[in-house]
């Protein structure tokens, strides 16, 4: 295997991990509440800044900083549900209103991040600086950590949804809200918990993102939009589809960046998305069954 191909594969793995974490959270919210959370990129941004603050300012080891950011981000996710989703979800045209409200929140968070952390580039320290050689290409062990994190969390979420009482409640609300209420499930609580879980996944995405690239207050939207492409690409059935979609889009992005250049890669990814939408317009992300 040529070195070029290998380095494309490595960056595809990192991107795929990032996108699968982002997209699975989005997908969970989408399939349960039927809304798109434009503030998901803002959650990623907040997660990255929190981890950075805990590790650089408080002086915790990176992994501990990550662990400390998780509950905070879960709380922020529930707060987001409370102010930007719950007031609109039952109104006529609620999905449009939630999109506008989460977009407004995302913009506000961007401003807040600029105020609190400033416009400078920040990077989270790598867990381990070690690399190992594969042929002539050196692979950072952080790549493997990112990959493991994504696989464990997404497959963990799939298992949770299949096996636990909470997962059954989520699927019940998603399939028939009124019947779920009849058997004593409170949708409001389920929605809050879904937002908490999605935020935790966004925090993990933030960890991957923050250790592999520099973060600035405006950088939340890019992974959000690519995660949306992943949702569409990963297609109808399950979070497995999201996982496959994430790594495929990661590969596409890494490949087009290598061959076409950085500025053409998002154009290529979005054009692929438009093509898919033309072929498969019907419910692209259906509920899990």
């Amino acid at each position, binding site marked *: 295997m040529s070195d070029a191909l290998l380095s494309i594969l490595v960056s595809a793995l990192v991107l795929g991990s990032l996108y699968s974490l982002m997209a699975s959270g989005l997908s969970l919210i989408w399939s349960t509440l039927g809304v798109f959370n434009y503030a998901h990129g803002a959650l990623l941004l907040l997660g990255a800044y929190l981890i950075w603050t805990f590790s650089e300012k408080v002086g915790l080891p990176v992994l501990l900083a990550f662990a400390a950011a998780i509950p905070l981000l879960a709380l922020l996710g529930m707060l987001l549900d409370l102010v930007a989703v719950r*007031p609109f979800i039952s109104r006529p045209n609620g999905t449009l209103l939630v*999109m506008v*409200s989460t*977009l407004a929140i995302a*913009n506000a968070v961007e401003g807040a991040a600029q105020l609190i952390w400033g416009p400078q580039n920040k990077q989270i320290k790598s867990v381990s600086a070690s690399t190992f050689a594969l042929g002539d290409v050196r692979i950072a062990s952080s790549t493997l950590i990112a990959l493991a994190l994504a696989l464990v969390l997404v497959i963990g979420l799939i298992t949770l949804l299949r096996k636990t009482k909470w997962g059954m409640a989520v699927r019940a609300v998603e399939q028939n809200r009124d019947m779920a209420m009849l058997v004593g499930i409170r949708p409001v609580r389920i929605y809050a918990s879904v937002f908490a879980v999605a935020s935790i996944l966004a925090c993990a995405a933030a960890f991957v993102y923050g250790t592999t690239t520099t973060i600035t207050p405006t950088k939340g939207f890019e992974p959000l939009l690519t995660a949306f492409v992943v949702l569409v690409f990963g297609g109808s059935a399950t979070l497995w589809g999201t996982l496959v979609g994430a790594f495929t889009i990661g590969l596409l992005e890494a490949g087009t960046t290598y061959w076409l250049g950085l500025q053409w890669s998002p*154009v290529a990814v979005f054009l692929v998305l438009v093509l898919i939408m033309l072929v498969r317009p019907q419910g692209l992300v259906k509920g899990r069954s």
Partner: protein
Amino acid sequence: MNRLGSLKRFATWPLLLLAAALLPYVVISGSARLLAATALIYALLAASWNLTLGIGGIFNFAHVGFFGVGGYTMAVATVTWDMNPWLGLILATAAGGLAGALAYIPVIRMRGIYIALITFVFVQLCYYLVLAIPGITGGSSGLTGVPALSVGDFSFAKYSGLGYLWLLGGAVVLLLVLLRTTLRSPFGKSLIALRDNENLAVSRGMNRIRQHLLAFILSGAVAGVTGALYVAYFRVADVTLFSFGFVTLGLSMIFLGGTGHIWGPVLGALVVTVIDRQLTDLGPARAIIIGVGTLLVLIFLPRGISGLLEDVWTRARRLLPGNPNKSAHRALQKPANQTMEVEESTHVH
């Protein structure tokens, strides 16, 4: 009909036109004229957006993209290709309409949330395309030195943009007349019918795709010419035209003004522009205030300012001498009735 009603009916358009003509005599200082011109440009943007978003009920987020396409067409035509700015304006209108048609093609068979997302991606696609072809668009540094519009020797930029104020004020009145005429035409009524009950409308022989495509082209063309005017006024085009902040600003104007009336977004644009100007010194805090403000409006003022004014107007009419029974009757009927007068039933469902 009582006196107030007939006044409203016959005097509105001439009065608005007169107001547009007199505007530069009221707004005299350079900074005030800048603010007024900005507000009028945003009014054009928000009012044309409402044709698809509010009146059509289509979750169209691509409008800022049409605006940017128009702006860049103007800049490329005049700076890169050295064309006459008026020709650029016409070209930008066509480009905006074409962008509208292109953005509609992938969403033809989609509904709701998917339309919102794919049209949002359209804006991103524009953003990255502009960055990807710096030879024509100037890349991330944008295109500067766009010539000002002029008639003969009179440059519109003279006297702190006197000509622009007249042009933009006239354009807003013209757009309102155009939207009103559209709403009263079979085409406008079919848009509302498709929004309120698509199945019924289609079963009565309406062609959803054709009507929605026309709405996209029409509102795209208006957004295109608006973008060109923006660029001709500020003399520069850059990628912030496609930014998220711009999308949020436009949406906050529409929802603050209310989607229920064609003039709602115009009012929203004027208010938001003035507030936004007051906030410019705050830097990043401005984004926070606009974002949180938008959220609060969405929660507490679901029908926007125009809805609020409508309620006040209805109450005022009931208090006036004339035909109290009829007025009271109208007021009671309004919330439940969706097919009365077009302008009173354009709430989004």
